[in-house]
């Protein structure tokens, strides 16, 4: 039995019938860390809300832990953990009060499942008498995760837990997720940050309600069709303009300090370099590279 199974799940909004989720089918294995990767408006939140029984689908079906999301919603509600996009805590309650409130709501106590949250809670325990509204972004995020975990959920749904969080807190957060996975909890997480995709067991790339690809991050990267080069020059903007008008280049875009370029045919690196030099660019560097998830996403989007 799959932990989560979506079968042609569809969600349509409003009078103008905007399709937010378009025939999405996917499965998540028990104990898997599954990532839903896509930009804002891709339909990630709608999928999460349907799976957590907060929204009714307009088509298709889905099960969580074998329970139907429409018929069996009370079962799902008592077994899953959910952390919505916004940090949903009571700002006027203290850290400890928030945690014990959610524990009670889920019919348990902090003590009963303390082992699950211990690693995370220890980091914020010294602030346990502070009101949640006065915590930093990273701390709030940790507290919210504790609250979602306190009843020992079988499946944990995390909707964009790292959005707007700085890179250091993001890294810490993913390390926490890895440890939770080791304890056997199935985790389904969404993120707009492509670089976080490699930390998942499997990912679904999603855009405008449609699944672009479902694979392990390695397989997605391996399936990148073209040979990819990283190119660098002193003047980045000039480089990008030059390459985009270069007839042998198929696609090019900025990527960190480099421009990533794919070519229509196999190239001789020296030929390309000298072409760029002719165009007046200096400090040229050119090397073949492996694609990243972001390259794959861009490639899929441009298709």
């Amino acid at each position: 039995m799959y932990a989560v199974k979506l079968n042609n799940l569809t969600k349509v909004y409003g009078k103008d019938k905007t399709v937010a989720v378009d025939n999405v089918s996917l499965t998540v294995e028990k104990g898997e860390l599954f990532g839903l990767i896509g930009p804002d408006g891709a339909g990630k939140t709608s999928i999460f809300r349907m799976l957590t029984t907060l929204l009714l689908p307009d088509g298709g079906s889905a099960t969580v832990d074998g329970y139907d999301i429409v018929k069996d919603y009370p079962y799902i509600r008592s077994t899953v953990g959910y952390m919505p996009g916004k940090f949903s805590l009571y700002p006027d309650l203290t850290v400890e009060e928030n945690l014990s409130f959610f524990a009670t709501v889920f019919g348990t106590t902090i003590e009963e499942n303390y082992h699950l949250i211990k690693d995370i809670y220890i980091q914020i325990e010294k602030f346990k008498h502070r009101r949640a509204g006065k915590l930093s972004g990273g701390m709030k995020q940790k507290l919210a995760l504790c609250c979602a975990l306190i009843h020992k959920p079988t499946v944990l749904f995390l909707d964009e837990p790292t959005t707007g969080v700085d890179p250091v807190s993001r890294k810490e957060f993913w390390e926490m997720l890895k440890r939770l996975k080791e304890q056997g909890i199935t985790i389904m997480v969404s993120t707009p940050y492509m670089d976080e995709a490699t930390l998942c067991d499997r990912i679904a790339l999603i855009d405008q309600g449609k699944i672009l690809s479902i694979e392990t991050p390695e397989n997605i990267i391996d399936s990148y069709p073209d040979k990819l080069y990283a190119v660098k020059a002193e003047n980045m903007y000039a480089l990008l303009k030059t390459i985009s008008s270069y007839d042998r280049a198929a696609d090019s875009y900025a990527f960190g300090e480099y421009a990533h370029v794919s070519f229509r045919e196999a190239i001789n690196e020296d030929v390309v370099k000298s072409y760029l030099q002719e165009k007046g660019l200096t400090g040229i560097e050119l090397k073949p590279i492996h694609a990243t998830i972001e390259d794959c996403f861009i490639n899929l989007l441009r298709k």
Partner: protein
Amino acid sequence: MQDVVIKTDNLTKRFGDFVAANAITFEVYKGEIFGFLGANGAGKTTAMRMLCGLSKPSSGNATIAGYDVYRETEEIKKNIGYMSQKFSLYEDLTVLENIRFFGGIYGLTNNQLKTKSEELIERLGLESEAKKLVGSLPLGWKQKLSFSVAVLHEPKIVFLDEPTGGVDPVTRRQFWDLIYAAAENGVTIFVTTHYMDEAEYCNRISIMVDGKVEALDSPTQLKRNFNASSMDEVFYQLARGAKRGD
């Protein structure tokens, strides 16, 4: 000698005992893309508000486009553009109405408005959307439009507060194309971001930790100084020791 458009000298902001921005000193040059990085709560927003003339510094000095942040805030506002992560256009007005409204605020004449809005809509390829409500556009387009409106009055400096959060990678790059083009035209770009690859697009970067500017250099030089292979690592090394959050 490059033209200095932003100059701060020990700029400090205190809220009671809390020093949100602590003796910030740096210079930003004309046409530069300046990345302003920092962990949540490091004091980026506070510093940015002072530079925009929205908040009075507790001590220190700063001039923006040659105007003093204490006395000449009105002049500063005329010479800067501002765009924030939270989309800053009116969702219930059309694309054209938004352009006209914001252009009008900055005192563009009707003729200027007309040519400028046509130009802008053509450049963004929004011809068929010009009469649609901004609320109905995808996020990426909104952000591009928002940026274009922020530079409509040809400001000397544009402040961008996490302009690309949550935007898809293709649109994100199109957004940076707009930034590059503006910088080529001599507009100074002052930008905050959580994407470390975007930090690489900047000419120079400052990284704030606990209210202080802890590092300031070009991405290449920073990586060399911190013996790091990516900006991510540089950031991690600096921000890991941060004491406070927001």
